[in-house]
């Protein structure tokens, strides 16, 4: 809106509001942006695969890892769209089944991190003083080591495996939520209407519930959408380097880890699982980006 002079912006702001109009705006923004639509479609696709996976796979018996050496490492064909792996399993089947694992792990890590980080952040932002200082310093500490390195250190301490990888990634992820919700709570604390609420005798809990949380929810949803994608990527990364899910678990990163040994001749084995990681992360990122446009009116750029 900064393109438009203050007078005009005021005019528009005056006309803002009204639920029907907000929905119209949201629909317009999503429809206008090809990128947001694409994100929505990709995320819907991944969620669909995760929900329906076991029922729609072409070779359900390949899920567990059946050894079928006669069919090993076949290139993509009508029977096996994405080819077969080193023990003769259909790669498409294993990718589809892997969607559920990836999505669950991505969503799980994000929600757990938010569940730890958000209350701490809001507490820090509203309490102030020494408590805030302690929480924030502690948070900074976790942020001082770049994510994946810290995760590897934690996995190295806890031992490899998908469960420990998740724990490690949750420990890496929560500080971001403290930062975000703390800054929101802090910003809102200074607003005149919070002052007014406090003066009129509203309890701290009520202020938190009624004012701070609703104001923090939009950026939170945006961050969580983006983080689900990044968490899927991180789990796949740990799987790839051999510290996450162990084969024959149908995890995309672990599949690529094995497939790497069969490059360059059996290229399809590595290419297709990676494509699915890419598309899911892309989907959640685009969706988050689109949601930001819708939920945060200040970021509108006409």
């Amino acid at each position, binding site marked *: 809106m*900064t*393109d438009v002079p203050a007078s005009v912006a005021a005019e528009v702001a005056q006309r803002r509001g009204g639920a029907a109009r907000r929905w119209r705006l949201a629909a317009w923004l999503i429809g206008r942006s090809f*990128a947001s639509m694409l994100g929505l479609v990709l995320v819907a696709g991944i969620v669909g695969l995760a929900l329906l996976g076991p029922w729609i796979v072409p070779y359900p018996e390949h899920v567990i890892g059946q050894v079928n050496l006669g069919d090993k490492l076949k290139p993509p064909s009508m029977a096996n769209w994405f080819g077969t792996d080193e023990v003769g399993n259909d790669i498409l089947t294993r990718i589809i089944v892997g969607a559920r694992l990836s999505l669950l792990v991505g969503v799980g890590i994000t929600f757990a991190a938010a569940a730890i980080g958000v209350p701490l952040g809001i507490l820090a932002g509203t309490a102030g003083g020494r408590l805030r200082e302690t929480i924030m*310093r502690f948070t*900074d*500490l*976790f942020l*001082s*080591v*770049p*994510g*994946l*390195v*810290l995760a*590897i*250190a*934690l*996995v*190295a*301490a*806890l*031992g*490899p495996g998908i469960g420990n990888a998740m724990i490690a990634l949750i420990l890496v992820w929560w500080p971001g939520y403290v930062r975000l919700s703390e800054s929101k709570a802090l910003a809102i604390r200074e607003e005149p209407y919070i002052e007014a609420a406090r003066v009129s005798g509203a309890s701290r809990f009520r202020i938190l519930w009624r004012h701070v949380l609703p104001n923090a929810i939009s950026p939170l949803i945006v961050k969580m959408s983006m983080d689900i*994608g990044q968490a899927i*990527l991180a789990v*796949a*990364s740990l799987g*790839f*380097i*051999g*510290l996450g899910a162990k084969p024959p678990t149908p995890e995309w*990163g672990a599949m*690529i880890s094995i497939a*790497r040994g069969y*490059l*360059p001749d059996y*290229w399809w084995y*590595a*290419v297709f699982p*990676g*494509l699915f*990681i*890419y598309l899911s*992360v*892309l989907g959640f*990122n*685009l969706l988050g*980006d689109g949601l930001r446009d819708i939920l945060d009116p200040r970021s509108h*750029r006409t």
Partner: protein
Amino acid sequence: MLTYILRRIGLAGLMLFGLVCLTFVIANIAPSDPAALAAGPDAGRSQIENLRREYGLDRPLHEQFVRYVTDLVQLEFGRSVATGRAVGTDLARYFPATLELCLVAMAIGLLFGVPLGIVSALHKDGPIDHVTRIFAVSGVALPPFWFGLLLQLAFAAWLGWLPTSGRLSVFTEPMEPITGLLLVDSLLAGNGSLFLEAASYIALPALVLSFPCLAQILRVNRSEMVEALRADYIVAARAHGVRQRRIVVVHALKNAMLPTLAIIGLRWGWMMSSTVLVETVFDWPGTGLYAVSSAIAGDFKPVMGVTLIVGLNFMIANLIVDLLYGVLDPRLRSA
């Protein structure tokens, strides 16, 4: 300005101490017994007990911590089971390779990210802007290890233009390190062919590593440039007849570079952590590969050493960014 610098350095020092505490805590939540690990699988109970005493693992925690810190101060990180060398020695050998990789990647990110961001901002909502936007979003979503494998397939296996992996051909006589950065060392030694060879080996991993960084610098720089170009002071500069190129490259860009700089600091840390993946894909002999192979082997000391080095490096990068902020923003300088 001086107090600003001192404050920043003080904060960094505090963080460093915190980092040391963090690694100590992680080391102590490890369910595996370092003494048992060091003694090997065939060691008897008494042997392990001896090692425990030797490592001071039988002492109370606070004594262990003091010993841990004093060791670190003397750059004593312990011993790697796999290489049999002191972790400090290993780090000194591997870190320059990682640093070189990151520096080249960051240079690529800046060299392309900033100008592309400016061009997109100037052609906002035009075709160029749409292309760079798609490029930027995919850059952040692309799994580095997968992208690396794809590039290996395309440029090494199929086209044969570039080597697949490693830092130099196994047949090349490695030179005595001066700075440890091969590109710099080969130039210092006046060895052009070695420089070209090193460049051909670093090209793919650096490209993979730079890609998300480039994408994010581009995006941030674009949106900040769009914002800056709309600012009142730009309207005034135009009204006063300042040349368009000067407005874009100095008046607007200087303002846009402040947030871009913050991203560069964050991205540096992100890059350091991505080296873990990229070095694994390209067999790049750096700290990332060292950490991964040690972690898989359950060899704990090297992983902690890498964590400390990477954390320290990230801290220094942020300190540099903070100081650059001070140089760029006069309001900070006089505050």
